[in-house]
């Protein structure tokens, strides 16, 4: 495989606001693609509409910046028609989960081999500041001056509810964490959702403050890794254990708790119960925000199954051209 650098994937001058989380993510994506090593000409980056959906314009790959909400559907056709391509689908929270919610769940359900990036800043930026389907209840915005009266989607919950097999999360400013999950998403065969916590400096500044800095993550996040204990804290002093139907934070070395008591992360577990609990942590509940690959379960992909079925039927059916197809009908001859 040819060797690439991030420069090979870079194009143009991004036009996002200075300080926008999309800049950070874009850099990480370039680097991840270079490390993955798929040629730019075999890569397609497909977005919808929104600030983050401008991203394909800054890629030296094939790509489309399409219409609002339809990126997952368009990416689906692209991948199924040309499975040789590595397809990345990029959406914001409005594009992906509001107008595009239906396509998001069905892409996950079908398990099409798409790397689906969800840049979540919990706001509509391009239209200048309306609440999004991930804005918290009571959120004040231009379209909700007295606060919203609706609950948000939690992307992991939606992904799992749609029978998604891969869910990972990173903070836009955390380059190593982002690159790691992007590579894992590429490696995963099937639809993989990467939620990127990304700050909008203009309309929703500070929405991910608790984990946006390295120090913040040290205090308020937990990096989950398959096969490793769920330990976190500035000095790795805390861990997660199961208690009843839920999770509990324990302090290692206190009340007789040892490292061996800590729950080991299993991203490959088919049952998503505990993975969902991890993914939902950190919503003001005293738990840390889970970062990294939370769920990564192998399953047959739609595009592989489509190809396999075509091969199977080709072997079974006696006709392989239009002329032969005609002959399968009831034919009569007029002399």
């Amino acid at each position, binding site marked *: 495989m040819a060797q690439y650098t991030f420069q090979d994937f870079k194009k143009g001058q991004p036009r996002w606001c200075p300080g926008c989380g999309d800049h950070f993510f874009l850099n990480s994506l370039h680097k991840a693609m270079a490390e993955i090593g798929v040629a730019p000409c075999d890569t397609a980056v497909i977005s919808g509409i929104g600030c983050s959906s401008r991203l394909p314009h800054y890629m030296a790959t094939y790509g489309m910046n399409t219409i609002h909400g339809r990126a997952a559907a368009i990416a689906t056709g692209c991948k199924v028609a040309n499975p040789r391509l590595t397809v990345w689908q990029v959406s914001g929270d409005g594009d992906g989960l509001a107008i595009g919610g239906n396509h998001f769940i069905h892409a996950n359900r079908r398990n099409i081999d798409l790397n689906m990036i969800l840049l979540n800043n919990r706001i509509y930026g391009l239209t200048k500041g309306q609440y999004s389907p991930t804005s918290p209840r009571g959120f004040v915005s231009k379209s909700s001056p007295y606060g919203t009266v609706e609950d948000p989607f939690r992307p992991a919950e939606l992904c799992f509810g749609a029978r998604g097999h891969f869910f990972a999360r990173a903070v836009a400013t955390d380059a190593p964490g982002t690159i790691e999950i992007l590579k894992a998403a590429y490696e995963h065969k099937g639809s993989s959702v990467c939620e990127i916590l990304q700050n909008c400096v203009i309309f929703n500044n500070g929405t991910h403050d608790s984990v946006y800095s390295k120090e913040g993550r040290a205090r308020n996040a937990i990096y989950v890794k398959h096969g490793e204990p769920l330990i976190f804290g500035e000095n790795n002093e805390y861990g997660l254990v199961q208690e009843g139907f839920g999770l509990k934070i324990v302090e290692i070395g206190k009340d007789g708790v040892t490292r061996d008591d800590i729950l080991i992360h299993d991203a490959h577990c088919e049952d998503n119960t505990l993975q969902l609990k991890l993914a939902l942590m950190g919503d003001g509940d005293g738990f840390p925000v889970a970062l990294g690959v939370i769920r990564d379960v192998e399953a047959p992909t739609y595009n592989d199954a489509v190809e396999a079925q075509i091969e199977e039927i080709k072997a079974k059916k006696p006709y392989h051209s239009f002329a032969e197809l005609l002959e399968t009908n009831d034919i009569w*001859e007029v002399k």
Partner: protein
Amino acid sequence: MADSLEVKELEQVVVRFSGDSGDGMQLAGNIFSTVSATVGNSISTFPDYPADIRAPQGSLTGVSGFQVHIGANPVFTPGDLCDVLVAMNAAALKTQYKFAKPGAAIIIDTDSFGPKDLEKAAFQTADPLKEMGIDPDRVIACPLTTMVKDCLAGSGMDAKSVLKCRNMFALGLVCWLFSRDLDIAFNFLREKFAKKPEVAEANIKVIQAGYDYGHNTHSSVANVYRIETKHKVPGRYMDITGNKATAYGFIAAAEKAGLKLYLGSYPITPATDVLHELSKHKSLGVTTVQCEDEIAGCASSVGASFAGALAVTSTSGPGICLKSEAMNLAVIMELPLVVLDVQRGGPATGLPTKSEQTDLLQVLFGRNGESPMPVMAAISPTDCFDAAYEASKIALEHMTPVVLLTDAFVANGSGAFKLPRLEDYPDIRPPYVPEELKGKWTPYMRAKNGTRYWAVPGREGFEHILGGLEKDDKTGAISTNPENHDLMTRKRAQKIANIPVPDLEVLGDKDDAELLIVGFGGTYGHLRAAMEEMRAEGRKVAMAHFRYINPLPKNTADVLLKYPKVVVAEQNMGQLAAWLRMKVDGFVPCQYNEVKGQPFTVSTLVQHFIELITK
């Protein structure tokens, strides 16, 4: 008595088979039309399904009909009214009698006219014929069920399977009535049930019994008939519905272009059969994705097109409403896409199983911005094949979405389809970006005819980004420059205007017609039949029928402005007329509009057109 029977020659005949949805009327009709087509008669068929999904047996809403029109000369429609009505039960007689000509022969199964059957069919008295004012002399009343049971007694078949053969008895009777050669029907059945020879033989036995019954008794019919063949076009044929022909057209175009065929679709009446048909042919590499909605059906096709496939999305009017967004994306990205609209009655859910031509203005104009799109309309079930092929060719060679209009009537109707040879069809050559442009190429560089080049992902050195935002003509980067937008808008329009389409053909009395009949798409057969009938009566009439609606044929204005009177006849409130008036200065046609969800009737058209001439 048999000796006194007269054989009468007929030019054409219409037979309507009707019964419960499960009575196998379509199969009986299909065999009858195939038998007739095999001897070289011209055929046209149309099924009339009930709107209910599964109405109770014997009920009025559960009746389905299948009409077959057979002619010594070419026939253009399934016929207005029938010469022979087969009514397998009381409900069928009640609902279908209105489709019978005065004096038509009526075949009924007296076993299905018991008190319960009459009650279900809402007859008030025990004498349904009298109640409906039907002359009993015209009725071939036979205890059909009893005779089928007798015929298959000792065959070892269960009662249910025996009853399934009733349609074949009726078919046998009809074959006798029209002096048809049963061997052709036998061969048809032996092939159809090749894997179940016992079923084939049972059916054959019953057809023969029906035929013999007619021959031995021919109660109440004075004649048997013969339809000679006058216009034989030798060749190999199959019976094909419009939807199947459309699917075949796409398959043929993909093969000719050397591309994968991709269909993104969502089930919708009356277009779903195209999805069904294409889903069968995986051995040809056809990929169909049944999407989560109409939007995704079209959007995924746009994605497939970008990825290098011949991309098609199929739907009906309500689906076009939802697809228009992604259709527009294909307009600005200049990617090939075929959008099939099998029109049905609207607005909204409207009349899902019925036929209209009410989507024309929607597909021409129903998108935001300046959004030019080629529009074609298939004129008959068999023409759907050529139309789908041509729509695909235009889309691929001119890098544009193309709308192909058919309608429920054309889609469900069938005709004898002369097997096409792919080598007789023109090549399909998409404008792939030439390798020598590597390093210089930008996405909106155009070939001489104004068409953008196609760079399919996978080609090194041609990586590019397309999108829904306006792009710079030269660089392909996002641009809001006013001059550039104006230029791009004009280039997109010019590209469509440059598409070569054949001239409008004038049929009939092209030099001295008093009236020019104008239509488009699926009404061709009825308008043609009306014209022929008027000419046979000595009227000077011509007709011009549009297959290409955007761009219009170059000679459109010349044709439309040549005749003293022009009538645009269409199954909407005047959409083609409005389009033509917009495009042809000084064109002021008469209009004939019907929005009934039913095909035109030739007799009504003739009556109206004669009034137009004489008033």
